[in-house]
């Protein structure tokens, strides 16, 4: 805990608690092994090896996270105060790892002619050249280490106890995602456009984050969240440096959640990216980003909450309404879910604004519940295909309920969960955050939330109408089953149901995680 003093030629080796950092290290280690596999293993074996390495890495990291959670009340700072290991963080990290594992099921999907990722930037999907390439074994197995690096970044992001570590984590998490977005096998242009948009806007937001960090350093003389909190409580806290720093930092964080007015990238990126990657972003990235927001606002800026709450109120209201209203006009399934994800970002922010224990645990629960439903929903989207790949346009989904009642029924169930209908996890989550928000004095926010839920219900209902009450088109899409995708759908649906009907244990877990609060 002693401050690092940079005396000339005398840099003391940092003290690292390997045991407490193990989940992060395992994932990053697996990613490095993946890179080695890519370099050394023969082409034919790469895919199998990569899947194995990723799966083992994620499972081991998850198991270690559980072990940490079960051990003595986790409430430590590790790595010289750079990383916090505490209840909420472990909950978030565990959630990220499970969701990443589920997304991995989609990423590893192979049964349908080829991987959803392009092998070479220039090949046309379904062309003889591509087939030749496939025969020659040209497959993009780099996606696995890339995903692992991203997941590693996501694990550090909500755990970072100082803003610099957080920034590094942000970049580790984002850079692989920018790449992954551009790798779709079909609709290459859309995919590349998504990658470029995401990269440019992401770079902007990173710059905002860094600038905010710099200003806060100027104010507090430290990038440690606890030092910033201490500095704020010492002074009366209306310094322009502080407020500007907080504002810029928030821009960077809210961008990652996709909160309005920083939501513009989301529909484009979600639509263009390979659906498996969209699932990863919509679940894990959101969890990590909200986790980071929780840490920054609950630890670093807690004492300043009377200043940031009005701002967050505005952002949350804007986010919920934008997401719900704009989604109505969407005609593409993935874009629609992107806007729905924006709206959900707003609901999550109501939990953050509550700034009480119930808000923390409610947000944690919401994150887990929402993540599972999201991965499941995107998994269904990858299954519904026609000649040009996934049938993205909503009109193609007409009458799916008659042709494939089970698939359409599951998707309808996910939509109902997004809409927050009782007996689904979405309802429990919404109830948890809204209740916390009302208890935290944010009743108007909850009313806006309820109204935007009603608006959102309209477009979820529209999709259900389309699937069940419209006549199927003659050349409608077919449903491609693959065991991995089906597993992801099944797990998603099962968790959505269980967290809706008997949410007690999960709520208890979230509560006991939240009870330990963030370490400072």
């Amino acid at each position, binding site marked *: 805990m002693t401050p690092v003093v940079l005396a000339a030629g005398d840099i003391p080796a940092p003290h690292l608690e390997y045991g407490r950092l193990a989940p992060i290290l395992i994932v990053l280690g697996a990613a490095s092994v993946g890179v080695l596999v890519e370099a050394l293993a023969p082409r034919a074996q790469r895919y199998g090896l990569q899947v194995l390495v990723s799966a083992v890495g994620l499972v081991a990291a998850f198991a270690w996270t559980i072990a940490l959670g079960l051990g003595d009340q986790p409430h430590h700072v590790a790595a010289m105060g750079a990383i916090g290991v505490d209840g909420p963080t472990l909950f978030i990290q565990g959630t990220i790892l499970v969701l990443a594992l589920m997304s991995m099921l989609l990423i590893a999907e192979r049964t349908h002619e080829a991987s959803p990722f392009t092998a070479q930037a220039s090949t046309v999907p379904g062309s003889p050249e591509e087939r030749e390439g496939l025969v020659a074994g040209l497959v993009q197995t780099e996606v696995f280490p890339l995903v692992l690096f991203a997941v590693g970044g996501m694990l550090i992001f909500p755990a970072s106890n100082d803003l610099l570590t957080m920034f590094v984590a942000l970049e580790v998490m984002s850079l692989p995602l920018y790449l992954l977005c551009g790798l779709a096998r079909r609709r290459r242009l859309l995919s590349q456009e998504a990658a470029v948009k995401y990269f440019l806007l992401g770079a902007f937001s990173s710059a905002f984050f860094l600038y905010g960090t710099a200003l806060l350093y100027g104010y507090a003389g430290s990038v440690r969240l606890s030092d910033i909190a201490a500095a704020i409580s010492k002074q009366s806290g209306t310094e322009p440096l502080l407020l500007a720093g907080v504002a810029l930092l928030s821009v960077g964080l809210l961008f990652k959640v996709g909160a309005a007015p920083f939501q513009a990238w989301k529909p484009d990126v979600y639509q263009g990216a390979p659906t498996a990657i969209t699932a990863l972003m919509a679940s894990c990235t959101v969890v990590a980003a909200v986790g980071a927001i929780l840490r920054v606002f609950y630890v670093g800026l807690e004492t300043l909450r009377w200043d940031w709450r009005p701002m967050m109120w505005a952002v949350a209201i804007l986010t919920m309404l934008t997401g719900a209203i704009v989604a109505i006009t969407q005609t593409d399934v993935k874009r629609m879910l992107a806007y729905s994800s924006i709206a959900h970002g707003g609901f999550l922010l109501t939990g953050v604004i509550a700034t009480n224990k119930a808000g923390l645990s409610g947000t944690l629960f919401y994150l887990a519940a929402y993540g599972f439903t999201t991965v499941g929903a995107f998994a269904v989207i990858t299954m519904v295909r026609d000649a040009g790949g996934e049938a993205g346009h909503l009109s193609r989904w007409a009458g799916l309920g008659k042709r494939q009642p089970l698939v359409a029924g599951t998707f309808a169930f996910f939509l109902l969960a997004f*809409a927050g209908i*009782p007996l689904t996890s979405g309802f429990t989550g919404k109830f948890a955050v809204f209740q916390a928000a*009302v208890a935290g004095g944010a009743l108007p926010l909850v009313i806006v939330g309820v109204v935007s839920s*009603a608006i959102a*219900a309209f477009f979820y209902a529209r999709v259900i109408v389309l699937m069940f009450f419209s006549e199927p088109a003659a050349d409608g899409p077919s449903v491609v089953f693959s065991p991995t995708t089906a597993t992801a759908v099944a797990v998603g649906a099962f968790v959505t149901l269980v967290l809706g009907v008997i*949410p*007690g244990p999960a709520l208890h877990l979230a509560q006991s995680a939240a009870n330990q609060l963030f370490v400072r």
Partner: protein
Amino acid sequence: MLTALIAIPAIGALLVALLPKGKDALAKRAALVVTLIVAVLTVVMALRFKADGPRFQFTEKYWWIKQFGVHYAVGVDGVALVLIVLSAILVPLVVLASWNDAERSGGVDNPPKRSVKTYFALLLSLEAMMIGVFAATDIFLFYVFFEAMLFPVYFIIGSYGGPQRSYAAVKFLLYSLFGGLLMLAAVIGLYVVSANAGHGTFLFDELRNLHIAPTTAKWLFLGFFIAFAIKAPLVPFHTWLPDAAGQAPTGAAVLIVGVLDKVGTFGMLRFCLELFPGAAKWFTPVVLTLSVVGIVYGAVLAIGQVDIKRLIAYTSISHFGFITLGIFAMTTQGQSGATLYMVNHGFSTGALFLLAGFMITRRGSARIDAYGGVQKVAPLLAGTFLVAGLSGLSLPGLSSFVSEFLVLVGTFTRYKVPAVIATVGIILAAVYILWMYQRTMNGPTAEAVKGMSDLSKRELIVIAPIIAIIVALGFYPKPVLDVINPSVKQTLVQVHQQDPKPTIAEKGSHQ
């Protein structure tokens, strides 16, 4: 007991849904058997209910989500009991009445064949939720049933309804969902109030005794009331009902108007009044005005309808006006009458819908002017239709008369002007029912109606019990009133309302 009543149809729904394809006949029989078991059990429960016993009977209480303070708590008072009995009796009849509906769903424009077992599975799940919603004594649980109930109905209307089914289904869903979400905000608010008072709970019994600041209470009241007013439906929240009931297949229309809408009026009586007595009194003038407007407006619109099912839907809007009038008159007679009206309306409107459905299936059109002189070719159909219709217009000797009379008397003792205006509704009721009867049943037999067959044996089995109940309750409503009265008195004690000094006093009423 209550849990069994909820679980049996729920499990039945699951089993029917899981039947292999092509076993339609088995699905129908299974559905009928399940609903009959539920009906028998319900009647047994009703017989064991002690009118002079504690208010809530057959209670069960377990933790459900401890973190939120949510219980799985069920129990019935008199009001809930009679409504559960109503549902449990109507559902098997509806199952029997819709025996062949799923195959030729849509009727008028003959859409392609739909899954039969899904239809019956949805009906069964709806029954489970209807019983659950009346039995729940935990507000969270009530809310869960209240919302979940929408989806079977939504899918039934959307998949099996008339030509405009998808529009009607979405309209129904959005209206109800909007109301439901407002109620959710109020439910959360109520919980937070109770948590601030030291003990967060959703249990009705505990919330009853909660002291809520008047302003908060008014807002919470509004949250609940709007949800119930949409459900009931009260003018101006009524526009979904004619569409939903007009497009729904007959069986579902019976349940929507006969039972589902009662959840709204039941909720007003149980939750709005008892949880927020002060606010309820504050809002009474508004509610009474809306009720009276609804009575007259619904009746006038009913007269103008050309579609039989829409006409019946509008008559219901008028009748719901009477029910809310009775509830908010806050007299024993008014509220007992209103509760009795809920039951009677369920049966008589249910019968009207069923018979109209039978007729529409034969002729293939819901338009009144497509008929004429049905009486001559199908005397049984016409006769039972007349009895159901006369009950709808509250002819003495038929069940609705008793309840309408009680409502008007109960209202008159406190609010004279609304009662007087509401009486106009009775006259208008005679116009819309008899005029419809005249146009469809009397006169020269229309060409298209000539070959119409009379009620089949199956249809007679459906309609006979309802007619019997209508007549029986018309002459001897005492058993039902005996069950209702104690609950209603409790409600009035809670709202600190005493019956006004008698101009017409009922023996044993609160003085």
